[in-house]
């Protein structure tokens, strides 16, 4: 489709850009204490964007801007996930005490720009577009991680993030240039065709390129061995940004991996039929091993953490590992399970981070000591935190279990080659129980009945209830979600 024709299908992004400009302009006229209003501007803009994404989700899959990006139900699904998590983060940012000393105008604007990048990440089918979208997201993340300029931890987080980000995107760029050199094109489908006609003498170069590209992707989803930035950045960044980084870029990162690896580096049937795809290259095995290492490392290190925020950072590494388990299976089922996992993961993970915000606002700390006897003092917060921990562990009847069930189901169904991945995943969920329930233990098992009960402010209470309801309800009845995901499993693809 030509550039002019494409604009019609690019409306969500255009509205988003207008919203961002509106945010910037509004910021000029506001006093520091009123900058929360910009969150409203962005929020309302995002709702309109969401509606127009929904409106476009039923158009037949097509490419825009001369094969730069696609619009298909899969990308619409991911965009809606991103919008939901952004909206939740905007609301939480109003109540986040860490930000009260700063103007929030730029903060919300940067989040808005990041959403544009995330949208492009989910839909790019050209390696240049891919690189540009990743960079947009990364640069916004660097600034946001270091947003608390008076806090050295936050500054450290921003700087660390920049260094790691620059390094891994450099490596990725090198990998992408290898692919371009081998195939002579930047378009996914041309690359796929070129690769399928190559003989196996090109494999070493391709594997080299794949590994380098995975450095960039792995950095976005915080997979081992590209995870080193995660704990420090997550600990130093404002908690709302930590929460955001743990869900939205991860969702977009997975969307990008699925498109790039499943579509480009396997035969084209992997994403179109019920059959399992095939590839000569050993990347499924490599990702399988990385998935197991990622989960195991995330879980084992999480056990030793003193700070709950840092523990949640490692737990999010582990969750990236669970989702990666399904990547080696080149089938539509695998993509379905990752999509379901991502959706339930938003609510349980954001819910846990929101409780970290509540406790930090109240006590000023994030360590286990601050949670001592919390369940007796703030019963609702304690009970909901228990629910989030249950869900993150993956115990029924919570949404986290449904996510794990789908991942395990995909692996068992794919045959006995993948059984070792299931067993590794299962053992890891048992390990994770230990540290998730360490929180529960501290909240309830120690401490005594207190006569004065306290409740969080109504905004935060509303947020945690809003995230808790899907965390439980989707574990009991997820038929609508399953249906929606099934409908969204349509990818743009060019028949070869």
């Amino acid at each position, binding site marked *: 489709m030509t550039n002019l024709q494409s604009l019609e299908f690019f409306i969500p992004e255009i509205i988003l850009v207008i919203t961002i400009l509106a945010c910037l302009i509004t910021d000029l006229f506001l006093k520091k204490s009123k900058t929360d209003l910009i969150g409203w501007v962005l929020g309302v803009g995002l709702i309109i964007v969401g509606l127009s994404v929904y409106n476009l989700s039923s158009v037949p899959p097509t490419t825009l801007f001369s094969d730069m990006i696609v619009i298909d139900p899969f990308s619409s699904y991911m965009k809606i996930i991103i919008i939901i998590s952004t909206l939740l983060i905007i609301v939480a940012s109003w109540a986040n005490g860490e930000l009260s000393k700063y103007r929030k105008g730029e903060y919300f604007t940067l989040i808005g720009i990041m959403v544009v990048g995330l949208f492009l990440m989910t839909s790019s089918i050209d390696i240049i577009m891919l690189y540009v979208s990743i960079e947009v997201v990364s640069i916004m993340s660097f600034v946001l991680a270091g947003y608390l300029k008076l806090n050295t931890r936050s500054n450290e987080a921003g700087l660390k993030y920049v260094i790691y980000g620059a390094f891994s995107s450099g490596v990725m760029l090198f990998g992408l240039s290898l692919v371009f050199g081998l195939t002579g094109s930047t378009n996914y489908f041309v690359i796929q065709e070129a690769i399928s006609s190559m003989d196996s003498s090109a494999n070493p170069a391709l594997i080299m390129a794949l590994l380098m590209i995975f450095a960039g992707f792995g950095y976005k989803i915080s997979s081992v061995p590209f995870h080193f930035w995660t704990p420090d950045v997550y600990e130093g960044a404002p908690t709302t940004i930590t929460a955001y980084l743990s869900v939205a870029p991860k969702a977009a990162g997975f969307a990008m991996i699925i498109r790039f690896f499943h579509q480009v580096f396997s035969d084209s049937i992997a994403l179109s039929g019920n059959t399992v795809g095939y590839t000569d290259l050993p990347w499924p095995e490599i990702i399988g091993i990385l998935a197991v290492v990622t989960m195991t490392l995330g879980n084992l290190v999480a056990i030793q953490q003193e700070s709950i925020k840092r523990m949640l950072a490692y737990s999010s590494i582990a969750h990236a590992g669970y989702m990666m388990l399904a990547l080696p299976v080149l089938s539509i089922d695998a993509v379905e399970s990752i999509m379901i996992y991502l959706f339930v993961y938003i609510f349980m993970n954001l819910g846990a981070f929101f409780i970290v915000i509540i406790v930090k606002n109240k006590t000023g700390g994030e360590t286990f000591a601050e949670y001592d006897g919390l369940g007796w003092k703030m019963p609702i917060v304690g009970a909901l935190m228990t629910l989030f921990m*249950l869900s993150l562990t993956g*115990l*029924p*009847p919570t949404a986290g*279990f449904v996510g794990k*069930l789908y991942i*395990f*189901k995909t692996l*068992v*169904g794919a045959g*006995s080659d993948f*059984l070792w991945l*299931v*067993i590794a995943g*299962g*053992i890891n*969920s*048992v390990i994770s*129980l*230990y540290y998730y*329930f360490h929180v*529960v*233990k501290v909240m*309830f*098992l*120690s401490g005594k*009945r207190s006569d004065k009960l306290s409740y969080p402010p109504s905004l935060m209470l509303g947020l945690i209830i809003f995230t808790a309801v899907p965390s439980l309800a989707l574990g009991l*009845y*997820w*038929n609508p979600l*399953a*249906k929606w995901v*099934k409908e969204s499993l349509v990818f743009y693809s060019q028949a070869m």
Partner: protein
Amino acid sequence: MENILSLLIWIPIMGAIIVAFLPRDNENLVRYISAAITGLEFIVAIVLWRAFDPVNGSMQFMERYEWIPSLNISYILGVDGLSLPMVLLTAMLFFIGVFVSWNIKKAVKGYFALYLLLNAGVLGVFLSLDFFLFYIFWEVMLLPMYFLIGMWGGPQREYAAIKFFLYTLFGSVLMLIGILGLYFTCGKTFDILLIMERAPEALNGVLWWGMSAAKVIWVLLFIGFAIKVPVFPFHTWLPLAHVEAPTAISVLLAGILLKLGVYGIIRVNYGIMPDQVYWFAGGLAFLGLVNVIWGGLCALAQTDLKKLVAYSSINHMGYSLIGIAAVVAAGEMNGGDLKAAQAGLSGAVFQMFNHGTISAMLFILVGVVYERAHHRDIDGFGGLASQMPIYTGITALAFFAGLGLPGFSGFVSEAMCFIGAFPVFKAIVVLSTIGILLNAAYFLWAFQRVFFGELNEKYKDMKEINGMELFTVIPLAIITLFFGIYPGPYLDLIKATMDQIIEKIAFAASYGIM
């Protein structure tokens, strides 16, 4: 009557919600409402029992609703001769347990809300016939149990609670993988009855890692259940959990939760893969023997009365394992001895019920003395017989029942397990009689140390067992004595279902052992 099984599951869930919203200062109200809910539950269970047709060995009172059609998950409930006695036992022990927990002082509301949730989970496992539902209830039991041990338990409660949780979760994760294996091999369904029908054919010749998939799935499921039983070497969580748990929770843990393991083996492993029973029975009987001997030896070494009873549970569940291994007598190659198989399996199922009542009694009685003395050291008492004659009498009765004295129900079921297993596993049966000896030794020795000899001066003012405590023990004692003398009604209730299971296993022998 149509939805009586749903009623059984949903009464306690609703009850838990009601209790959670009661005012937290009115503790007696919470207790009375919990008693009323479990009482109602018990009445519904009795109504179910009266309406149950013992001649029919298949599932009765089936309920079936669609739930998640995209994964073929349904809400299916049913009851047969294997689950009905367990449902009755559950309803009864949970009702009694409310009175055993009457003295709980800390966060009464939370305690009873979790208690009722546990009740729903246990009944759900016994009644559900869809693997997904089964698994959900299986896991729903864990959280209340974690809190009940961890918040209301003894000094080491936190460690005991997480150890229990980790062990069981490990087992259930393996079980989940096994269930998914069955889901895919048997045509993408979670319906247990449908899988039972399809599995022998569907699993035939399927290989995982060069091994028969049926064997891999069997082992995965077995470990999940074995941790619950608990089978040696997965038993280490049990003594700790028992010792730390409050009395009522120990009662339920020993009385019902351990039975879930054996129930699962019979319902799932035996029901779905009857042909693999022949492959595994020898190992099962051997594990039973180890349980009997190991449990007995450990019990002998204990100085804590509650720990002694806990190890006696391991010892007693061993008999059940030997009993269920005996079903292989029904196979042609073992002589097709249906009578022996019948005796073994019925004995094992009967032993589950008897151990439920007897161990419940033992734990309540240990709780009674702990309440007064605040310790359970066997050597720390002495001469209690003169101080508390009624308590001594009842404890004597419970100990005798526990050591399997003829005239008590435990004797009947243990004898049946042995009779059934003898034709196939002669050596194991002969060796496990040592367990009976140990069994008698640890109970009698403990009895002697606690009740006879000179009265310990510290306890000369010890109060006699009170009315409410008697109320919790006497019904159990009556049941134990009644079935010891006249086990007929129980065996008639389960016979048709047992026959069906054995028939299936006998038939499986004809299509061969892989």
